């Protein structure tokens, strides 16, 4: 997860070097997408917002202290964009919550040779997707990073700019919420 000599790459970005910024974008694009997905739920919006956040980051890169890690600073830009997007979407369509529940980050089915097993698996995955979508964005974000993308605690701590202890306590709260939602949907 570490980018070699991030500080000097950021310094080059500050001088307007877009190639340097390309390496930052390529390094962080996936976690940026997953964080955005945790907030907004729809994959298309997550991709779009994460790209917008990089554009905003480059525009304000001169304000960034290059002795610090890039992603926690970038995360605050991304989070603001996502929150604005959620507020805008809610204003635009009153039924957004129902719609988001249907279009959320539904897990990808893992196909097996047995059709009956596949159907059961798909049903379970749909319920997991619904439960995930009903979580608070903050809980969904950490569940996506840890459960579905297998980031280590250290990687999550680095990405979100929080201590490992906070990763564990946030994960505890998020998993409890996830369990409650799954129980409500009949998954024991």
């Amino acid at each position: 997860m570490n980018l070699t000599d991030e500080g000097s790459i950021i310094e080059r970005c500050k001088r307007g070097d877009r190639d340097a910024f390309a390496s930052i974008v390529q390094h962080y694009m996936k976690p940026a997408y997953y964080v955005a997905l945790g907030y907004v739920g729809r994959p298309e919006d997550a991709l779009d917002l994460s790209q917008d956040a990089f554009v905003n980051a480059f525009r304000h890169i001169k304000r960034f202290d290059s002795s610090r890690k890039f992603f926690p600073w970038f995360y605050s830009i991304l989070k603001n964009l996502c929150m604005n997007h959620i507020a805008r979407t809610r204003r635009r369509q009153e039924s957004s919550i129902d719609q988001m529940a249907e279009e959320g980050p539904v897990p990808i089915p893992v196909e097996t040779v047995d059709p009956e097993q596949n159907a059961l698996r798909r049903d379970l995955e749909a319920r997991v997707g619904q439960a995930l979508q009903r979580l608070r964005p903050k809980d969904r974000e950490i569940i996506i990073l840890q459960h579905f993308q297998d980031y280590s605690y250290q990687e999550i701590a680095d990405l979100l700019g929080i201590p490992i202890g906070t990763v564990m306590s946030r994960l505890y709260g998020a998993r409890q919420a996830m369990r409650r939602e799954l129980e409500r949907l009949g998954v024991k």
Partner: protein
Amino acid sequence: MPDDTYKPLLMGYLDSELTEIEVLRMEQHLEQCPECRRELEEFRKLKEVTQNMRVVTPDARSWEEYWSHVYNRLERRVGWIFMSVGAILVTSYGVYSLVAKFLLRSDIPLVVRVGIVALVVGFCTLLISVLRERIFMARMDKYERIKR
């Protein structure tokens, strides 16, 4: 409820993220605390349920094109600034020329002058409307590259 100190550690224990000393501490606690054992079991089941599942991820092409989309947006912003400055200058000159060359000339009949104003206003309204529609459509279409 399990002891608050052990709640976060329970997560670390489940995900094999604890140090050896922390694991020993946790195992000692688990022996004495049925509530924590029960919670650990429930979290383990949750982990099993979500095992091998992945959230929807853009396809390889989307990742390959990711930077070029960011780059285009960066470039486009600069383009928009120049476009806006240019549009303001040209429109101001156009309005000035229109007023000076046609609208203030008494030798051109009033009907023609009113007609010219109506034409200009109508053209601008249609242009803005079409542009707005195109921009809206472009926003809808750009999601085509996502593989569901």
